[in-house]
């Protein structure tokens, strides 16, 4: 499996005591699969993605990227992973082109110039190569983050709300990009509140609520699950039902 999460738990220590954001979460994402990770606010989606990306350390459990443990073998795991967070995080003093070059050096990208040019075209960043992040709109910054993630050959792609800030054309292109990467064999985990996007591009969906997985399967599997038959056939109805807002 490209991505395997096994009994993952993440607890935050705060002034008012410990808080478990994610508890006993297990799932896998295979090559070519697009898995949607959905849940209400505070369900633990972003914590899960950030832990898989190596930003947060799991309190318990194991996260493996292509059989490389993110805690015990972080370099190999990170080489195979690309994380596109919801909040575009860029170095405010580096230009778009310099960000791509930085990533190319970090991940020893072969054929960087060709890949970079193609990506700039694909994400409509032409003419912005010399711009600093402060000079770009939020949507453009989001595209830069995505370009940095796609400029290398990552086997596992993590998208956290990838469409935030994009215009309708950008949304359509991004959707096509995600699908194309999966077709090329990448394992994709996509977190979004846009259920129609998840329904449209994902091959499977994981629903989280209050730090726990409450549903996992293809749309057909979920729609025919005994306890969800009453919910309805579309993802929104299933989502509302399993998160206790069905009525």
């Amino acid at each position, binding site marked *: 499996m490209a991505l395997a999460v096994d009994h993952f738990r993440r607890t935050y220590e705060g002034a008012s005591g410990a808080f478990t954001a994610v508890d006993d979460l297990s799932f896998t994402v295979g090559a070519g699969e697009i898995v949607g990770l959905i849940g209400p606010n505070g369900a633990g989606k972003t914590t899960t993605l*950030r832990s898989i990306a190596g930003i947060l350390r799991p309190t318990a459990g194991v996260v493996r990227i292509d059989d490389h443990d993110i805690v015990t073998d972080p*370099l190999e795991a*990170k080489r195979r992973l690309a994380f596109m967070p919801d909040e575009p*995080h860029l170095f405010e003093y580096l230009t778009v082109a310099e960000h791509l070059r930085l990533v190319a050096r*970090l991940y020893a990208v072969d054929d960087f110039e060709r890949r970079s040019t193609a990506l700039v075209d694909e994400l409509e960043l032409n003419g912005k190569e010399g711009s*600093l992040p402060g000079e770009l709109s939020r949507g453009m910054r989001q595209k830069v983050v995505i370009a940095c993630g796609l400029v290398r050959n990552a086997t596992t792609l993590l998208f956290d709300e990838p469409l935030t800030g994009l215009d309708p054309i950008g949304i359509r292109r991004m959707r096509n990009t995600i699908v194309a990467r999966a077709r090329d064999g990448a394992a994709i985990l996509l977190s979004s509140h846009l259920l129609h996007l998840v329904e449209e591009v994902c091959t499977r969906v994981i629903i989280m609520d209050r730090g726990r997985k409450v549903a996992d399967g293809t749309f057909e599997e979920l729609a025919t699950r005994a306890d969800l038959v009453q919910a309805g056939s579309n993802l929104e109805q299933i989502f509302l039902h399993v998160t206790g807002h069905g009525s």
Partner: protein
Amino acid sequence: MLSASLYIIVCSARNRIRVRLRRLREPRYLLGAIVGGAYLYFSFFARMRARRAGDVRRRSGASGPPVLALSALQTTGASLAGVALLAVSALAWVLPFDSGLLDFSPAEIQFLFPAPLTRRALLVHRMLRSQLGLLFGGVIMAIAVPSVSGYARLRAGIAMWVLLSIGKVYFTGVSLARARLASPDRRARRAAWLPVAVIAVDVVAVSRALFSVVLSRPIAGVQDLLTRVGAATSSGVAGILLWPFATIARPFFASGIAAYAGALVLACAVLAAIAAWVLQIDAAFEDAAAMAAERRGAAATSQRTAYRVRRGSVALALRGRPEGLFAWKAATQTLRVVDRAVIARLVAVVTALTVLSATFGRANGLATLVGTFALVATAFLVLMAPQVVRVDLRDDLRHLELLKTWPVQAPAVIRGELLWPAMMLTVASWATLMVAELLAGSTPIGRIGVVWRLSAGAAAAVLAPALVSAQLTIQNAAAVLFPAWVPLGSQRPRGLDAMGQRLIMLGATWLLLLLTVLPGAIVALIAWFGLRLVLGPAAVVPAAACCAAVVAVEVLLATEALGPAYDSLDATAIERTE
């Protein structure tokens, strides 16, 4: 708008105090507050008490020493300070000074910008809002005044408050006007150039007056210099042109209560005039000012520093060690704040000044001044700057979420983060050291023999990178081990507890530096004993090299040892300031 402004100011101040009191429940803040409080007490209040007790014992008469140490300059002090203020006012047009008055907070942008308020009202709001900080500056000044009299402290504090307010408002005006110096709008351009012309006339007239008195006959000493400069700048055309600047400074030098009150009223009048000027130019540049404020405000939400892409940026090589990548990144960051042309000009000025001092300046003390300054600058660059210059992990903790996703070994990250600031400070310290060596004959170290002086200089040059790297390692180790204690980027946490934390960090840094250098110093001592008979004074150079080598090994070992701590460093451990 005034009532809304006051409401925001009062609520912000009240909530800030609440937050600061509440955070004292955390041990690190409590410890910081205790240390900060103790520092204030022992530095100022306890010393004041001791002085008072001493005064009582001495039973000095009514005609005792003046209340303010500066009162010796009562006659010429205001004019001299006026010259300094004129210089700062002129420099404000050349250097990228910024008052920060237009740095609207994200909340202010969110609530006040769409509100039915004029630009003028927004500016007045910012002026009012800045008063608390300026008042605090005045209070610190009042505490720091070397005087036993509470009245003198109060006077100095109020005068400082007015001075800081004037500075804040003036720099804002300069920022607004500077942006319109090349405006296509003639009216706006004229309004922007007018103050430049006024300041230029002032500078020329005062400089002429100063040169004429300085060059008229040889200077007998500092007292003579001050008297002559004071006389030249308090009379004639220079005196008239310098009047607003001297007026701002006059409250600091006024002797009696009536003179002080009068001086303060006049200083406030200057403040009112400058505020009126700013409001007027703000109206003249309405659109530009609004755009600038919005741009600044928007930038403030994500970043404080203004970066600019300049020509001739060095491209990152696509292959190489990760340390090089970090050094390139930090160098790019530095060079996007500081223009290379500015650095080139600075180097040219220092070189010219050094050559001038070495060839003509020895007779009239210029060499002494420049040489001593270079010595002090070297000491600062080696011993203090590593704590101040934060183009390393202390700044990059802001980007920890990004760095943590990179496939780079933790020790390489830490070494890479140290590389650029270490190089930058070392080169700067070598430059100032070279100037100090060239002019050493005129400085206090001129009494030392030439061979010893050159040997000591070479040894200092060898030691500088080691000392700089050691301190940077200590600072970055603190960032990795105690991230919550380290302010992120250009953040400056405020409050007694934050001051205490800084003092603890300073003390710990110095202590750790001593401990780091100690093994190297012992090896250096042994080397010196072994070589001194053969090499004489020059033996300090290989001895220093031994010390530097030991420190370099320690730094390498420390970066390796910090690896696991960096790996386990959690993004949630990083604290954003209030």
